[in-house]
């Protein structure tokens, strides 16, 4: 015998995950257009690895594989990780990162719904600490690159590390705008001088800022489709922008405009897709604001004062640790426990 209710909204975890993947497509498409097709290889490799590892992990638990593969969560983790990694990274980097994301961060903690930390960010953190060189060899924007690799050549390089005849690595790879900023600042150049370099576009990086814009649009779609609430993205952006703004005002020559920070690296991807991971994030409305703002602030601090080019991953992981505390102290008041006053 069933218990009420006997009807339900047409929704499922698969539909949610599918919409997240769909929201990523515009960003990926623009990335391919502006940076070359290598990203498609890494995406495919990450996806296949993730699904394979997920199947093994689920079967080891004695659960049926199909529902868990169909729920799409492994795919989302794989795509978010792949989009955080350099598109020309070697194949073993992708595999190791995906392994840590799916097996260690997700399944060793109990599987879907039980992970304390954002799986994609755990994968990224392991890679950036263990393989710093490979993690900073990003693709140049095609407008600045010496050579363009097609899909086959990209795949060949990713799997074997061998470039087509005569090509050197710096023909297709360069440092990211964030990386460039860091190294140039250490060489005592001012922000104004640095931003004149060709890698810098109007607001962020050449090409990169358009991709970031696509992620922003994808994120807005997610919000309108009620997949995410506005709290975490808004708080993240505010936290990053305000912290960046304060530093920028104090010394514009040393600290770049906060708009640059919003338009580069994993900021938009982080705000709408990564920080909004429901399992490892805060669950109360006020908690989400604190969580998002904390990530934004930490991202800026790690980028500017820390030792890594992008701080989104570590910021997310640090705030993941705070989530149980945040949740416990931001529980909203239940009906009938508020003061006897007409509410708005």
């Amino acid at each position, binding site marked *: 015998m069933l218990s009420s209710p006997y009807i*339900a909204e047409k929704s499922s975890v698969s539909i949610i995950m599918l919409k997240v993947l769909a929201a990523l497509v515009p960003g990926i498409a623009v990335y391919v257009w502006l940076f070359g097709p290598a990203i498609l290889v890494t995406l495919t490799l990450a996806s296949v690895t993730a699904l394979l590892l997920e199947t093994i992990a689920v079967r080891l638990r004695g659960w049926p594989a199909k529902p868990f593969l169909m729920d799409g969560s492994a795919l989302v983790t794989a795509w978010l990780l792949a989009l955080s990694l350099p598109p020309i990274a070697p194949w073993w980097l992708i595999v190791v990162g995906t392994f840590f994301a799916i097996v260690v961060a997700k399944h060793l903690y109990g599987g879907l719904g039980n992970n304390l930390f954002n799986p994609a960010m755990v994968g990224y953190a392991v890679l950036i600490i263990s393989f710093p060189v490979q993690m900073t060899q990003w693709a140049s924007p095609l407008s600045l690159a010496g050579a363009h690799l097609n899909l086959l050549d990209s795949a060949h390089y990713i799997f074997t590390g061998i470039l087509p005849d005569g090509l050197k690595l710096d023909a297709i790879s360069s440092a990211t705008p964030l990386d460039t900023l860091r190294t140039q600042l250490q060489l005592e150049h001012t922000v104004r001088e640095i931003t004149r370099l060709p890698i810098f576009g109007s607001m962020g990086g050449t090409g990169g800022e358009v991709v970031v814009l696509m992620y922003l649009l994808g994120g807005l779609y997610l919000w309108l489709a009620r997949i995410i609430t506005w709290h975490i993205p808004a708080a993240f952006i505010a936290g990053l922008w305000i912290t960046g703004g304060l530093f920028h005002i104090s010394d514009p020559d040393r600290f770049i405009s906060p708009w640059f920070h919003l338009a580069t690296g994993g900021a938009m991807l982080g705000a709408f897709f990564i920080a909004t991971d*429901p399992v490892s994030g805060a669950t109360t409305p006020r908690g989400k604001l604190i969580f998002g703002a904390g990530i934004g602030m930490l991202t800026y601090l790690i980028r500017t004062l820390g030792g890594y080019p992008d701080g989104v991953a570590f910021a997310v992981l640090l705030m993941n640790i705070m989530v149980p505390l945040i949740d416990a102290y931001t529980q909203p008041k239940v009906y009938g426990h508020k003061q006897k006053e007409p509410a708005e």
Partner: protein
Amino acid sequence: MTRQLYEFNGGVHPEQHKHASTTRPIAIAPLPKLLVVPLRQHIGQPTKPVVAVGEQVLKGQMIGRAEGYVSVAVHAPTSGTVTAIASHAVAHPSGLADECITITPDGLDRWVEHGALDYRNMDPSHLRNQLRELGIAGLGGAVFPSFIKLNPGAVQKVPTLILNGAECEPWITCDDMIMRERAAEILSGAAVMRHMLHSDEVLVGIEDNKPEAIAAMQAAASQCDFAVEVVAVPTLYPGGGAKQLIKTLTGKEVPSGGRSTDIGVATFNVGTAYALHRAVNHGEPLISRIVTITGNVHRPQNFEVLIGTSFTELARLTGATRDDTSGYVMGGPMMGIDLAGSEVPVVKATNCILVKSPALFPPPPLAMPCIRCTRCAQACPADLQPQELYWFARAKNFGKTQEYKLFDCIECGACTYVCPSHIPLVQYYRYAKSEIWAKEKDKKAADLARERHEFRQLRLEREKQERAAKLAQKASTKLTEASAGSPDDAASAVKKAAIQAAIERAKEKKEGIIPRNIENLPPEKLQEIAEIEARRARIRAMAQDSVEK
């Protein structure tokens, strides 16, 4: 309608499915072949039968007497013969049977003597007692004895009276139809409520998906000799929940663990108001109600049904049972009771019979793990965190569930409705609540047992001490008397001497009692006996000492 409305948190918009059952007016269901009237149809104590098998009863005659305070009577829905007072299947989630009185109608439908009540001039507690005897209970689903709610209590006055015509659950339209067709009578009932509660304002809350009902109630309100404000509230489930409707109309929240009268509000279903009107202005006990028969039926419709009519018979009034009928639900799809079979009687709580089909009510998909998406928290009209309650209930951490306000859950099902992992959340909360109640019951029983045990120990100890004290006193008085010298009376002196002689004789006898079978015993045995005798003498001496003390 310039009244300011407030919002409660969350809410969902399930498909309404209301139109089909409102195309036909309310039909009076024909007299059924058999009526099975459960003795328990309300919250509180079940009634006790006051008729016997074989007895002839009249329509409206009391057949079950209210027991205890929270209870109302039940009555014969028609005239006929009582054929059984036994266990019968009833509509309950457990599927268990309950005590029912079965009546075979004689077809004459003869009323018991009854007449209107002069409610304006009656003593209030007498009027409430009459309503209890007339079996009036809330018809919105909770079936709480209305006479208790119509008691203004210590505050003497409940300023705001709300009639609940929201009917937010999908499929159900009985309140809609009764408002369309019997608006004036509903307001007559409201007049009685207003009188009993000394209310200042009367509001009628109706969801805006019922424009005909709103119009009908407004027309009736304009003919009323007291102010009635008909308010259209947004169509949102569960806006018809009493707590939610009160918040929507007044902006105030009923304090947790308290009653709405604490904030000066009383809410009654429009059907209850109608029943109250029939009771007070016609003297008729609650023996029928409007029921919506809908779902997988040919001609969905509302009927005025006698309490005790079987679901099967009623459903057949809407056409032959369809082949793909997969079950019956009493109530709506969000909070109704899934029934094991349809041979259960209509009771005061039956607002709807929903016939299921696999197309309309597909089985729920496999439940996946919770991903903490908090759609449930966004939908919860009680501002709870259902995902936390779920995790704690699942971990059997019942203390934490209460910390997160489990008992403020109204089990409306909005959380389960939106869950993308298809987790049956309300089941977990019902489970947690039952476990907590069971534990409290056990604890109460254990506390009572402990108290009784401790009292018994105390009593035994006390009795022992009293006995010892009495003995001690007796012994001391005897001693004092013995050494007090010659008493006044010569007769008592003789008596005393006789008693003393008797005591001496008894002592001698006792000491002189020699067991007769020790002549031929070996010396070791004699030694043993001597030792035992010495021990006995020692103990006797000790006992004597303690008594003397």
